[in-house]
């Protein structure tokens, strides 16, 4: 493994700070809704272009670093835009632009209260997500991770109903507990190694550790990042958090927050422990087992949900564990597949959530059993929904197929058949729980004819766009963003140049 070519750049810093800088502007323009939304859109566009500017460097293996200052003797608050970071930041910031347009349509369509708090919290969330993506060491990671926890809270309780407040409590209990476990894990790691710097291939080096220490430490880390990643049995905050407005569910509970958890898993597996330690102590088997169980159980639980968003939430839990599974198998193709699924699941699931929100805004329907014949009233929306659902079941040409293919290959590379079986079964289950929705929407007749048609264009355009993106990325995974190349570079760096 060659040392990456480091260069100092303020780009990662700007990418993190830009939406934070928009927060005061958003707060100050409370009474002028259009100006306020302009700040959100401007911040999201600027953020995305900044991250995009980091892409060429990441493809060439050059890494932008930016150090703020020390926040504990010997540990700096530092940003490092390595390939994995850029990969995740690209997805989150790119989809934020679409979500911002969609949000405006959504909150105005429903005439939501406290819109300023909503947009301000959203901006803080995105800042901390970028911070998580670019964190150079564990302490910086925790720093942004905890900020994300708190910034998401006002969005979860946004509706301020009993259900929302209970969901908020549950969310805090889970995520704050995870936070302190992560702190314990980081402190312990620091005492053992004297460094918290993320390093491809692991930071423990050739330290000799006893199995019980490594296993306990790994479990602490796993609980720390696993809550946001929705690994069972730590997942149950996620369905509850569906009480949040739909754009929040779409971006945060399908992309930014949960993917931060999964991203954390990849960081922990690839950059803290490293493949050697993972295999030596049987940690990868443990992780793969958790992920496999989660994939199957979440898919089964999804069947039972009549609330559309809840069904999507369980589906998310299942798909997050695809990524975890990919990380746990630690073969070149499985890592590529897992990483690709971070991007692919994001575009597909955000489409589905956008559709759920559009249905809610246009027809105030949340339950699947009420969706009979809605495909005729909302052909674009339900068309996009179908694309996303087909993709999640793993059918080509939508991008979900590609990541699943790579994961399957990876399982075989690792010499395991069970994960492959899990993937196949899960694909069938996915098809099973999405098919009734599509069937009802297009083939059943509505009992009462629908009064409205599609939702506002601000909502329909983004969701069609993400559906289209899912298909395009399925046809060519290297389109625009070079996700496939990035995933290969990352996988190579973790496995020490053994990438395909």
């Amino acid at each position: 493994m060659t040392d990456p070519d480091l260069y100092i750049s303020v780009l990662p810093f700007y990418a993190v700070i830009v939406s934070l800088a928009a927060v005061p502007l958003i707060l100050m323009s409370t009474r002028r809704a259009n100006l306020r939304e302009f700040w959100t859109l401007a911040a999201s566009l600027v953020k995305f272009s900044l991250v995009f500017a980091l892409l060429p460097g990441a493809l060439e293996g050059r890494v932008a670093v930016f150090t703020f200052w020390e926040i504990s003797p010997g540990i700096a608050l530092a940003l490092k835009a390595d390939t994995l970071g850029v990969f995740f930041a690209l997805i989150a910031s790119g989809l934020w632009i679409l979500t911002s347009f969609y949000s405006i349509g959504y909150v105005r369509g429903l005439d939501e209260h406290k819109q300023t708090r909503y947009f301000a919290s959203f901006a803080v969330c995105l800042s901390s997500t970028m911070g998580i993506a670019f964190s150079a060491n564990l302490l910086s990671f925790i720093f942004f991770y905890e900020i994300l926890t708190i910034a998401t809270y006002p969005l979860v309780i946004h509706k301020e109903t009993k259900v929302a407040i209970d969901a908020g409590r549950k969310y805090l209990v889970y995520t704050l507990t995870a936070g302190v476990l992560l702190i314990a894990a980081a402190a312990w790691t620091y005492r053992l190694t004297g460094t918290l710097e993320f390093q491809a291939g692991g930071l423990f080096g050739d330290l000799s550790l006893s199995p019980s220490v490594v296993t306990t430490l790994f479990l602490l880390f796993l609980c720390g990042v696993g809550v946001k990643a929705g690994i069972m049995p730590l997942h149950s905050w996620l369905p509850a958090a569906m009480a949040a407005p739909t754009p929040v569910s779409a971006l945060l509970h399908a992309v930014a927050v949960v993917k931060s958890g999964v991203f954390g898993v990849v960081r922990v597996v690839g950059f803290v422990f490293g493949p050697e330690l993972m295999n030596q102590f049987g940690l990868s088997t443990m992780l793969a087992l958790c992920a496999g169980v989660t994939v199957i159980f979440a898919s089964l639980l999804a069947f039972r949900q009549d609330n559309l968003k809840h069904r999507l939430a369980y589906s998310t839990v299942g798909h997050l564990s695809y990524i975890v599974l990919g990380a746990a198998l630690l073969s070149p193709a499985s890592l590529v597949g897992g990483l690709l699924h971070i991007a692919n699941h994001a575009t597909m699931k955000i489409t589905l959530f956008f559709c759920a929100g559009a249905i809610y805004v246009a027809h105030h329907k949340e339950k699947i059993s009420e969706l009979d014949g809605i495909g005729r009233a909302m052909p674009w929306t339900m068309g996009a929904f179908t694309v996303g659902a087909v993709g999640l079941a793993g059918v080509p040409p939508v991008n979900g197929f590609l990541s699943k293919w790579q994961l399957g290959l990876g399982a075989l590379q690792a010499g395991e058949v069970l994960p492959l079986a899990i993937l196949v079964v899960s694909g069938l289950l996915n098809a099973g729980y999405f098919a009734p929705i599509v069937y009802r929407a297009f083939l059943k007749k509505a009992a009462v004819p629908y009064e409205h048609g599609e939702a506002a264009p601000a909502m329909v355009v983004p969701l069609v766009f993400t559906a289209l993106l899912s298909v395009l990325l399925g046809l060519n995974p290297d389109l625009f963003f070079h996700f496939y190349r990035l995933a290969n570079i990352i996988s190579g760096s973790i496995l020490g140049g053994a990438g395909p």
Partner: protein
Amino acid sequence: MIIQNSPALIPLLLLASAISIPLLAIRKTGIAYVTAAAAAFCAMAISAFNTYRVWESGPITYHFGGWIPPIGIEYVLDPLSAFVTLVVNVVAFVVLCHAGGLKDREITEKATPYYSLVLLLLCGANGMILTGDLFNLYVFLEIFSLAGYGLIGIGEKQAPVASFRYLIMGTIGASFYLLGLGFVYIVTGTLNMADMKTMLPLLYGNPAVTAGLTLIVIGMGIKMALFPLHGWLPDAYTYAPSTSTALIAPIGTKVAAYVILRVLFFVFDVKFVDQTLPVTDLIGWLAAGGILFGSVMAIAQREMKRMLAYSSVAQIGYIGLGIGLANPLGLIGAVLHILNHAFMKGALFLVAANLRKNAGHSDISKLDATYRNRLPWSMAAFTLAALSMIGLPPTAGFFSKWYLALGSIDKGNWVFLVVILLSSLLNAVYFFRVLEKVYLLPPTDPEAGKALPKLARRRAVGQEEYSLMIPTVVLSFSLLLLGLWNANIVKGILQRIIPPGM
């Protein structure tokens, strides 16, 4: 030159202005407050200057009246004492600024004696921190305590009782300290800390030393409200006037903690207190108990000041736990938490004071979303301080937790690690309980919502007076700066205070 006398200047200045207040304010009671605020400002400026001097040129000793120790009284400005005086005086000054907006409410006719007592309290606190003489420390302890009893007793109807209880407990504590000091004095023949430090290693087998140290720690443990010696604290904090609580809560117990720290690690030897006579272990375990007890009790309280008082018991535990670890990281955590907790608790008690001033009560069960509209900035300050108490980055509280966690792991004490992390979750429970009400609970009484706009129209920012809002916000928002720049404090000051042999 006056500059060379700067170590002694703070206590003397505060003492002189405390005595002159009754004279100055004979005609106009308003002068009392102005004098007190001015004196507190000067004390803050001098302690900032002192810190700068120590930072530039290392520890400074000052001999009172030119008498050479051990005969004369010595003042010692080392990084630790300079740092803690700075913390005490900054918080005291901000709280006194805030008192300007409150003075018409709780202490109408007693302003003159009240502000005189405030300055005596500060004089006692600064003296205890700066002195290098153990008996002189006792004198300042008594000044500090007597002023404290007065400041608490001046409050609500139940305050005299609470204050009397504190007086009994406090006097027992002080007597224990004096008795312990007597034991040590008999065998060493000196009261000077540095002098005693050189003599003690020869006497570690002596039972009088053991007895003396034990008594000193118990005595100071009472003053510090170390669990289970905290009984006086909740009532005293709850019924005292808002300014007294906001002053005593961040300063009072910390000063006693400082004395324990000073005596254990700078007069006695680290090795002795850690291994021969494991006082630090005892303090650590009691503190850990206090952290859990205080947090659980805080969850059960309905009154905000009372909740914060129990939370103080828990937070003192953090400092005690750091002392108990008896290693560099634990010590850094403890001293950093003296700073962080002073700011956090100061801010929180000021918010409680603003609530009482605005709504006439600080009963958590009566809070609802109208309070957020009435006091938007106070509630923002409360939120930030609460996040810091929970220990979320980037606020200061996160880093106390971080150093204490590192220290616990260093020591190999996993129970302490669990206690620190668990306490952070318990803090979340009792603070989010309040935050939920203030931000989310719609008012039950429709009248309350109607009465509000009438009042609200008078002022632009809710119903907050700037004189009350600004000090609260300053204390609370500095937690962000203290958090982000904590490494500078740790590297610049705290790493220099680690005693040899640790």
